[in-house]
């Protein structure tokens, strides 16, 4: 892990011209929606309106958005404890998400799941998972079913680099490759497993791990949504053509703490590192600059888009705050189908 603390480099960035301005603007909007969603989640925590803790995705928006932009609505995803970004990027509604974060009946899981378990069949979201690597099996199984049923779907399995510690990931990668399953493993390397730098927990080279199982793997600058999208498109195509699994290593960074309560962070990561990433590698600023510089959209239209999102998110929060809790008898419902 020689380059553990180095700047990640995009392997195959595509340029905006290939992608098309509509898609670029949609990706921009989606990233902004995630950013604004997370800020309100943090705010709800600070205002003691949100039960428990939550893990924010700020800084990593380009990963979820670049990947999900390459998917069809009925493709599946599985997500993690840091799952709001994946969920929104796949098409979920922020009002029902906030309602879930607050434990309200109107939430995606009727308040039973909370931040770490949002699931949404309508958008193919098989669920966030609070067990690190807990959805590796589920994602691979969804790809197994898709192949057997011949429905043309695929599944993206999102996980943090911490999940590389869990053996089950290697077990399912082995089977995915043996059986040529349409699953794409997306590793979000934000450099930290909770409070420990990944170089202290990860031997060898990350990309060599999927490669050892015969799975095509590449790394991409996770702060560059166009690069992420480009890589996703390539792997999606391979999977749909029956070539089996892929692995995308997205080099990224979480701008906030491990969870909303993780405020004092200097003992495990330097302030300077945070400032550098936030200043130079903000995926939203980066896309805005790219779009503006190439003249595809002007700053003003980006700003008005931003303003729209704020309104949407404010309304979603209001909806969630006003929504009622489930009645107590709900506790015993949904244990069995």
């Amino acid at each position, binding site marked *: 892990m020689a380059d553990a603390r180095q700047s990640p480099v995009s392997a195959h960035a595509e340029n905006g011209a290939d992608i098309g301005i509509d898609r670029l603007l949609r990706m921009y909007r989606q990233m902004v929606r995630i950013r604004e969603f997370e800020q309100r989640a943090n705010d709800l925590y600070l205002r003691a309106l949100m039960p428990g803790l939550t893990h924010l995705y700020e800084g990593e928006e380009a990963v979820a958005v670049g990947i999900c932009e390459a998917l069809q609505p009925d493709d*599946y995803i*599985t997500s993690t404890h840091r799952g709001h970004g994946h969920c929104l990027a796949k098409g979920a509604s922020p009002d029902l998400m906030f309602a879930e974060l607050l434990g309200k009946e109107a*939430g*995606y*899981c*009727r*308040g*039973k*799941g909370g931040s770490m*378990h949002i*699931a*949404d*069949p309508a958008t193919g979201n*098989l*669920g966030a*998972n609070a*067990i690190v690597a*807990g959805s*590796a*099996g*589920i*994602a*691979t*199984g*969804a*790809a*197994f*079913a*898709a192949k*057997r*049923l011949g*429905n043309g779907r695929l*599944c993206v399995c999102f996980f943090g680099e911490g999940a590389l510690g869990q*053996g*089950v990931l290697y*077990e*399912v990668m*082995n*089977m995915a490759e*043996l*059986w040529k399953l349409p699953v794409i493993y997306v590793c979000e390397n934000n450099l930290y497993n909770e409070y420990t730098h990944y170089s202290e927990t990860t031997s060898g080279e990350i990309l060599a791990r999927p490669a050892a199982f015969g799975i095509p793997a590449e790394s991409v600058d996770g702060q560059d949504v166009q690069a992420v999208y480009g890589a996703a498109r390539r792997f999606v195509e391979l999977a749909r053509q029956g070539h089996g699994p892929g692995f995308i290593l997205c080099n990224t960074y979480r701008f906030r703490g491990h969870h909303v309560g993780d405020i004092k962070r200097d003992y495990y990561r330097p302030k300077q590192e945070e400032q550098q990433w936030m200043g130079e590698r903000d995926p939203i600023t980066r896309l805005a600059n790219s779009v503006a510089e190439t003249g595809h959209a002007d700053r003003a239209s980006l700003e008005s888009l931003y303003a729209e999102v704020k309104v949407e998110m404010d309304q979603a929060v209001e909806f969630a705050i006003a929504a009622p809790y489930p009645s107590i008898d709900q506790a015993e*419902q*949904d*244990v*069995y*189908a």
Partner: protein
Amino acid sequence: MPETESPLRELTLAEAVREALAEEMRRDSRVCVLGEDVAEAGTPFKVLSGLVEEFGKERVVDTPISEPGFTGIGVGAAMTGLRPVVDIMFGDFLTLIMDQIANQAAKVHYMSGGHWKVPMVLRTTLGASRRSAAQHSQSLHAWPSHIPGLKVVLPSTPYDAKGLMKTAIRDDNPVIFFEDKMMYKLKGPVPSDEYTIPFGLADIKRAGRDITIVATSSMVQVALGAAKLLEEVGISAEVIDPRTTWPLDERTLIESAKKTSRAIVVDEGYHRYGVTAEIASVIAEGAFYDLDKPVRRMGAMHVPVPFSPPLEDATVPTEQKVFDAARELCG
């Protein structure tokens, strides 16, 4: 055994399980089997022999030795349109997959507010006395029985095995299905007509007046044997098989104990914090005012299963031990 008009054949328990699987696989193309050496080998116990020939390697899938991984694949496949039957060769390997069954399969439906479901069956084994030692002889059904969201099935006859397996495959929830390794060759009547057996319905394997013996899986035959011995000394024992530890047919157990006023619970899991504790508690609470004697629990000796034959035999409840306990309670 319920009444039925169809001709009765004798099948072994292994054949009954296989027939249930084959029928369900014919009926529903979403049903598939995943596990180690399940295809050509038909499992080491040969329970699945012939399935791959009929249904092909797409539906009878040999896996690597990756219990957590392929159980997880079963969960995901169940959520997205298949109805997988996952094969875990020895119940002792449940230790490897508790995350997949207890944290994932059992909770997906609830955590998603009822949106996703996991129609998966996990077949595995229990039972000692095969001289297989401590890591291949356990009866760990108490663990999944403790987890809300799972159903747990313990057939004790070929008839029950077939009917319960068909119910398990059609159930929309994760079902853990335990087969006693020593019973695979046990023969019993199985109708050739279609039937299923509902979960949560205990079966009175033998009616009696003086004492209730609740027995599960491998212990049902032991209890029936003890009941015969008891008859010879004039004690009429009622033998009840709950068939599913969850859902549990509390009423039948309690009613029987109320009637006989004495009860023994026999199960092959480790004695402490095992299945006998729950069942005995249910009876002790429900039949409190009618019991003449404390409910007696008999599990496997609370030690890892030893290899040496005389030691291993000493750890498991036997006809004689159940007979002795019953006689003492009735004394």
